[in-house]
């Protein structure tokens, strides 16, 4: 199921890239992939503010601006916590977005959904989705939203690592998202280089792309101590000879 849905995502990414849609195609992909009326991606900045990375259309852009201005809404909550939704903005609901709800409805939205974009303890932001008709997501859309959120997280890492579209597709096709070695290696590098785990994940990717090797292979070398980061220069140090001594 995943492979099949991932292929759908790749096909869409390629199509939107070809059409030259404003830079970041992921929002357009998300909206079309899940057959919704719009999507936006909000990113948590270094100063913990939420900023808009991209939106799929004008309405999605207006909704995202509204949320960021008010500091309440599905993406705001999802960026700090779990997935959430309001399936009918015109009716009484459990969501606490008192100011957001009528204004979002005035912009044409009837149901809004937020999904966290995260990887372990790293919070990137949130995927925000909306529809102009009320009602919950169906089971497939809900699963797809999690898949899309994970693709977005990895796309952000891959982009920050200077990777190409090809690198990203390679990564998504490679070892699983939750490859334990990659996360262990990131934890080790974070301590070696006195950097954040997120920066360590970016560095790992940048080095794997540069060296033309698989991310999981590089991670395995880091975990076994064959490749490490110099604490001063943050340069990579390879020690293949250690292999024979151990």
């Amino acid at each position: 199921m995943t492979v099949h849905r991932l292929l759908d995502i790749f096909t869409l990414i390629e199509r939107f890239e070809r059409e030259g849609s404003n830079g970041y195609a992921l929002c357009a992909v998300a909206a079309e992939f899940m057959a919704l009326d719009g999507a936006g991606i909000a990113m948590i900045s270094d100063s913990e503010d939420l900023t808009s990375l991209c939106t799929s259309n004008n309405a999605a852009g207006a909704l995202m601006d509204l949320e960021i201005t008010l500091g309440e809404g599905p993406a705001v909550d999802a960026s700090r916590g779990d997935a959430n939704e309001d399936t009918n903005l015109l009716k009484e609901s459990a969501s606490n977005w008192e100011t957001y709800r009528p204004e979002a409805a005035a912009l044409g939205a009837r149901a809004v959904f937020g999904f966290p974009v995260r990887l372990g303890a790293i919070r990137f932001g949130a995927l925000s989705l909306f529809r102009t008709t009320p009602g919950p997501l169906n089971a497939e859309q809900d699963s797809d939203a999690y898949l899309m959120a994970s693709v977005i997280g990895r796309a952000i890492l891959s982009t920050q690592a200077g990777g190409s579209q090809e690198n990203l597709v390679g990564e998504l096709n490679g070892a699983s998202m939750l490859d334990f070695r990659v996360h262990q290696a990131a934890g080790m590098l974070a301590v070696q280089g006195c950097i954040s785990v997120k920066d360590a994940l970016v560095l790992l990717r940048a080095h794997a792309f540069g060296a033309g090797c698989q991310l999981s292979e590089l991670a395995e070398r880091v975990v076994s101590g064959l490749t490490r980061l110099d604490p001063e220069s943050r340069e990579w140090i390879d020690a293949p000879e250690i292999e024979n001594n151990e």
Partner: protein
Amino acid sequence: MERESLLIATLVELADNLVDDYDVIDVLTVLCLRCVEAVDVDAAGVMLASPDGELQFVASSSESMTVLELFQIQTNEGPCVDCFRGGLAITNHALSETDGRWPHFTPRALAQGFRAVHSLPMRLRGRTIGALNLFRTHQGLMTDDDVLVAQGLADVATIAILQHRSTIDAGTLNAQLSNALNSRVIIEQAKGMIRQSTGCDMDEAFNRLRAHARNHNEGLTGLATRLVTKSIDAIDLDEWTKTRSS
């Protein structure tokens, strides 16, 4: 301990754990450890399906790299995948070099001394959400009673993942699965940091994390998050001394 008293003790222990704010990875780890004691197996682990249907490792009776690798391979093939897709138990499957059923998994499992595998489905109202995987270093049959006990523990694991919610729709279930799997990623990131800071192996890194969490009445995931976000330093974790597997 007699099996009956061991099972009673396990159920009491789990009931004790399944109160308000329990940590799902911790509870599943306890379950795997008890499974090894109650059923005649040498290693046990739980794999869960992500919302988009990919099997991922979440908890095991052993955190050694070689055992974790056996779960990592099963993202793609192996007894867990077959059990998960078919929704049916695989019991007493003898591993042999001539067995072509799992070309990647079998040779690795044999190399680590395992001779037989079992996989029991974790089911919830018609949906299979994962599988409990059991490994044995000797061949020979698991009795019907063993299977019954192991399936009972798999069912308890299923309940543990769903936490204390009474109604579970597809969206809520996806959120629970996604959170459990993300917790595992946080723990792997933290293990890497502990290993690098203290020079221990990954197995001990996990035990230190768990010992500290228990000593200070803190959730495993919460503590791992504090490590990754650097609000606690790995060298300040309590020492871990080997006692009965607890």
